[in-house]
């Protein structure tokens, strides 16, 4: 594999985001975001609309170039190793696009065949069946509802099983049954070694990620496990995601002297 700027070491983090910023004109969409993600981590990116979650995910996937800072996968800079990134990471955006000329099943077939896999059919059928798409597998994705399109994109990503899976608002378009199914699926893949970073405004009941990254106005204002954040923000054991977000924003304002 051809990669530039080789600085990969065995102890390099799987995903290393160091001090990235991104500006849309005069607006700071991201400011000095820095964190690492290791294998077997399920990280939830939480924040209000416009907090910079989608921009951060797009920067990590190499779809957008940050104006400052650097992102590395296994120590390799994302900006200089486009193909390497494609081999190790998949981002499912909030509105994934598909080929107009291929059916849902042909999308999965194409992905599997482009990777040179054989015997992929059972896995593909299993995925489609779990997300309720099996009976519509021969339809074109543009005839699907938004939720169905997201499910198909998830099936494509999960069929590939990348080392790092980025999901932008995965639970928003899904029905509660599919959301629960996705959560189980993500935990299973996490156990197999996958690192998952997803943005979300809600989580299935009783679901807890390994870690939260809380964003506000382009900055990461809190980073920690559910337990450490609960203790840090003095929340009770039955707090919701909303409570966590509100507490983090208030703590940030207090820190900045606004309160």
């Amino acid at each position, binding site marked *: 594999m051809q990669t530039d700027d080789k600085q990969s070491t065995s102890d390099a983090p799987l995903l290393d985001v160091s001090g990235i910023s991104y500006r849309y004109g005069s607006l700071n969409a991201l400011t000095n975001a820095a964190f690492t993600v290791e294998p077997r981590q399920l990280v939830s990116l939480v924040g209000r609309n416009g907090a910079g979650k989608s921009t951060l995910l797009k920067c990590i*996937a190499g*779809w957008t170039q940050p104006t400052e800072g650097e992102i590395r996968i296994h120590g390799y800079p994302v900006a200089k190793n*486009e*193909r390497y990134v*494609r*081999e190790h*990471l*998949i*981002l*499912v*955006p909030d509105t*994934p*696009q*598909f*080929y*107009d*000329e*291929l*059916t849902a099943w*042909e999308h999965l*077939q*194409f*992905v599997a*065949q*482009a*990777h*040179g*896999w*054989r015997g992929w059919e059972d896995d593909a059928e299993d995925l489609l069946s779990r997300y309720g798409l099996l009976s519509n597998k*021969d339809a*074109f994705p*543009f*005839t699907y509802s938004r939720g169905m399109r997201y499910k198909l*994109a998830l099936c*494509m990503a999960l069929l*590939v099983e990348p080392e790092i899976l980025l999901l932008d608002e995965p639970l928003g378009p899904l029905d509660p049954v599919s959301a629960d199914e996705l959560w189980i699926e993500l935990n299973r893949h996490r156990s197999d070694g996958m690192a998952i970073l997803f943005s979300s405004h809600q989580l299935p009941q009783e679901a807890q990620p390994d870690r939260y990254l809380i964003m506000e106005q382009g900055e990461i204002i809190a980073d920690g496990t559910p337990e450490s954040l609960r203790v840090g923000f003095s929340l009770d054991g039955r707090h919701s995601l909303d409570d966590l977000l509100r507490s983090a924003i208030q703590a940030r304002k207090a820190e900045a002297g606004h309160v």
Partner: protein
Amino acid sequence: MFDFRLLLLLRWRQFRSDALYWLRTVGYEPDERSFSQRVYGLYLALIGLFWAGSMASWGAEQAALLGASLTPAALDDLLAALPWLALALQAYALASALRVTPLKLSFADIAYLAGSPVDRAAAVMFAYVRQVVVRLIPFGALGALVGILLVTPVDSGARAAAALRGALAAEALLVFTTTLAWLLGILRLIFPRLRRHPWLWLLPFGLLAAAYVLPDVFLWPGRAAIAAVYGQASGAALALLVIAALGLAAMVFRLGSQVNMAYASDESIVHARIKALGLMAWRDPRLRLRIYGQAARAGRKPWLRLPKAYGLWGLTTRAALTYLRHPMMLLTSLLWGALMTYVAILLVGEQLPVQIWIGWLLIAGFVPPVGLLYVFRTDLEERFLYQFLLADRLRLLAADALLPLAALLAGALAVWITQGFAPQVAAVGVVFILLLGMLLALSGAAAFSSRRVALTRFLITAAGFGAVAVAGVNLGPLAGLAAAGTANLILCGLLIEGG
């Protein structure tokens, strides 16, 4: 009557909003009532008038030139063909109205008008009048040009009068045909039984067969228009046309109140989607094609299946399936290759000036066949899908463009080989065509891999094809071939480097 006033106000505001939208795209801010904006508005109006006047004058001159070159026999053939052309256009208009509702609603209309208690006859009449008015100018201009063309061989001094009569005759035909089409289209929206016949829209083309048997009955509108151009139309024929149009319009109005707006909304979705794109629909015609393509495929079972093939061959079969489900893209690539080769042969054979060569080059660079890089461009632009493609861009291009490039080369080679050149010239030409076809695909691919597509495309095409032309003209064909080969190699390197 209140509904008509209400809709008039709504449509006026929509027209104003659309007009402001387009004026803003050329830098005019009507809300800014400054002196500089008023001067700029005047400047735009004068430029527009000057452009329209220049185009009209140029068009009239070209029509007169063409008319002067017509032999009496050619004029007779043209006079015999024109009524058929008019009938074909009429049949097309009727078929269009029978296929999809002529009452086309935007998403806003679907949300607020279709479900409101506003008189449906008012909605129908506004849409009908708008369509007629919008078409009067282009059809009037076309009629005027045809008038000049027809009268020039007979009496070159009567061009102005013929232009006026031609414009009026074309507009009368347009109003009659549009009104008839609306009436048929509205009947479909009233009687659901008619909508259940999917092939009903083909019926109007039967008029062409009927006209073959009874020409006097079916070709009279076109013949009356031609007679009007020469000032020989009988008053009765024109009066009949006007009375028929008025009668049909009255029926459209009468039946308009019975239209089922749910049917109209259902059939307006494609139109509404395109209208919602605004300026993008004009800037990127692929978006329109995509919406039409989706609408066409939505109700059909997919044709053919994706074969079992792996790796690069898997990419190739996927691209081939895409093109086979889009055969027009292959056909346009084939015709483009044939036409450009034919024009290039003319350019070389007639030793035409360099400006014409530059025109050919610009077309090659900026108007390549849409199908050539359709799959490759989709692969690069849809970032979610691109993640699943592990090939570098050169291999991706090879897989994606193989079939359309083969079609383009087939068209070009067919034209070249049928010219009957000496074997040595023919062989050099074949190699040239292969290398230039590859250069065309590689130039486009390199441009799509860049952030500034248009600029990159211009520079790469000018450099690549320019180098081939300069080397070929000054140093001989072999030097031209060497330049084409080198340009191809450099572009291959750029694509591999790109990822």
